[in-house]
């Protein structure tokens, strides 16, 4: 029971870290970035590929994985979002263009076989793989009947620290003030002399770097890396998390992440493993129907 609760906190941290990036983009741009789960997967896949197939050290690979995710954030902005923003396209357009990019990223990892153009992304085709033991430093402690693996325990402080830093930046720094100004009213922010495009690029870079890091943490601790981890584990759950916490709210995404982890573990204990995911989505559906602003959101304003 205590072990399950601990697992809820581990997985909840990953959900939270992933969803913070999701909700940051939604809060500032009112856009659902559906390429976010592909960036999550890319972080994990690239790290794995560099360590296992290209003989890099784990830490170098982590840095490169996060860097690649951050660069992918710039790609999302320049390819999928900026041309649409110039035309004042409705948010559904960005939904489609980011789906397109997600398809490309997933296919690139899937097809990254040795000898092809995407060999540098070579994971293992469509198969699920995991880091061979010993590659990732992973001491394990046994305390009071609980198994504590370093790779899982480390997730909690890393996630909380990053989310605190992000919260501080958003609330107290000049950059954060600029980002919030863009979120409030991009036009007015521009008239006040803010470089809105640069602010949005920055948002995407931060969001994607967090997503990529969440992917690496997931890949290391859950020992499951495949082109589909983004789609299967976090894409829709990430939506559930940001809805539970209130769309666009960073503290809400954090709380929602842990709440979803908890809901899933309770469902697992009470209803068995099959019902686990279904309960999460039922919670998402009910939440939207009964309280669309989320647990911590302000009531939605009807836009006329």
């Amino acid at each position, binding site marked *: 029971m205590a072990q399950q609760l601990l697992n809820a906190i581990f997985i909840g941290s990953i959900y939270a870290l992933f969803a913070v990036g999701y909700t940051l983009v939604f809060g500032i741009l009112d856009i*659902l970035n*559906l390429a976010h789960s592909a960036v999550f997967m890319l972080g994990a896949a690239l790290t794995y590929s560099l360590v296992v197939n290209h003989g890099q050290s784990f830490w170098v690979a982590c840095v490169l994985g996060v860097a690649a995710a951050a660069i992918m954030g710039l790609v999302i902005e320049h*390819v*999928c979002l900026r*041309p*649409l923003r*110039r*035309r004042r*396209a409705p*948010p*559904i*357009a960005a*939904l*489609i*263009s980011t*789906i*397109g*990019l*997600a*398809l*490309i990223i*997933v*296919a*690139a990892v*899937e*097809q990254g076989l040795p000898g*092809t153009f995407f060999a540098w992304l070579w994971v293992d085709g469509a198969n699920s793989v995991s880091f061979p033991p010993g590659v990732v430093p992973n001491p394990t402690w046994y305390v009071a009947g609980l198994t504590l693996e370093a790779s899982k325990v480390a997730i909690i402080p890393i996630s909380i620290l990053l989310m605190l830093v992000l919260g501080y930046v958003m609330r107290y720094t000049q950059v954060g003030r600029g980002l919030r100004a863009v979120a409030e009213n991009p036009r007015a922010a521009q008239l006040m002399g803010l470089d809105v495009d640069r602010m949005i690029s920055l948002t995407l870079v931060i969001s994607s770097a967090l997503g990529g890091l969440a992917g690496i943490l997931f890949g290391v601790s859950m020992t499951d890396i495949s082109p589909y981890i983004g*789609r*299967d584990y976090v*894409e*829709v759950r990430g*939506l*559930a998390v940001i*809805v539970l916490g209130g*769309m666009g709210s960073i503290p809400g995404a954090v709380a929602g992440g842990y709440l979803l982890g908890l809901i899933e573990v309770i469902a697992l204990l009470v209803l068995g493993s*099959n*019902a686990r*995911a*279904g*309960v999460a*989505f*039922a919670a*998402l*559906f009910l939440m*939207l*129907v009964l309280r*669309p602003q989320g647990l911590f959101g302000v009531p*939605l304003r009807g836009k*006329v």
Partner: protein
Amino acid sequence: MDFITQLLTDPVGFYTSHTLLIANVGINSILAASMFVVLYSGQLSLAAPGFMAIGAYTSVLMELYWRTPLALNVAAGTALAGVVGVLVGLPVLRLRGVFLAIATIGFIEALRLGVILNLPITGEGLGLKNSHADPLGGINIVLVAVVLVVFLLWRLTKGRLGHAWAAIRQDEVAALSQGIDVARYKLIAFTLSAVLAGVAGGLEAHLNFFVDPGDAQYGVTRAVQVLTFAVLGGSGNILGPVVGALFLTTLPEIIRFQDFDYRDMVTGVILIAVIVFRPQGIVSRGGLAIVRPRWWPRAKIRAPSSG
């Protein structure tokens, strides 16, 4: 390129060798029509795969347990999908934009992962074997259904209902102030969409020997695929989504390479290109939307805009 050559030089041979593909184009066209109805009334609903699953499981279970005729099975599945459509539509249609999209995603995944994968009668994760399926003969009823659906929607969009939907899509508040019962017309659109998805699901289940509760069949992946049909083709009129379905379903056959699977990549590139350069879709009026990059010199004379 054999695919197109055969289509042009030997249509009859093409039909016999690609029957299942043509049937799938038909199924996907009905699904695209289901997406069209909600988009046309301004609702971004991704619930189609959920109603498909209802139609498919209902009709296959009737087939397996009662051995009732195909038409009755599909009709029952469709009716049930419609009833569930009303029940789901009543609460969720208060939501707008991406919130509606997320709620419908919650619905389809809760149905698939929570209900279908847990009920013994639906075969849980293993799916259902339907030994009475008729992959080759099933195509006729599919083609008839496509023609009926397209004609029905073509007429509907030209009539009172279609005008109400268009008004709601353009401005919900303005439509309300014109005396249009917005909630009612939205519910009609949502239910009709559910019914069409139920038909598609029921028909599809009788083309395959196996009903698979996977993500690509009744999950988010399918929902996204159906959305791309409608967006790629354009949702200004019913032909757009049908052309989108035709294009995206046959694309994998056209660009089939020996050892390297570029299909998803090409689909992704096409999606981005269409949404950036031709936001109204393939089948719509208007030219290409070229967005001037910042470093590109501004045009001297602005062309007069023509609606």
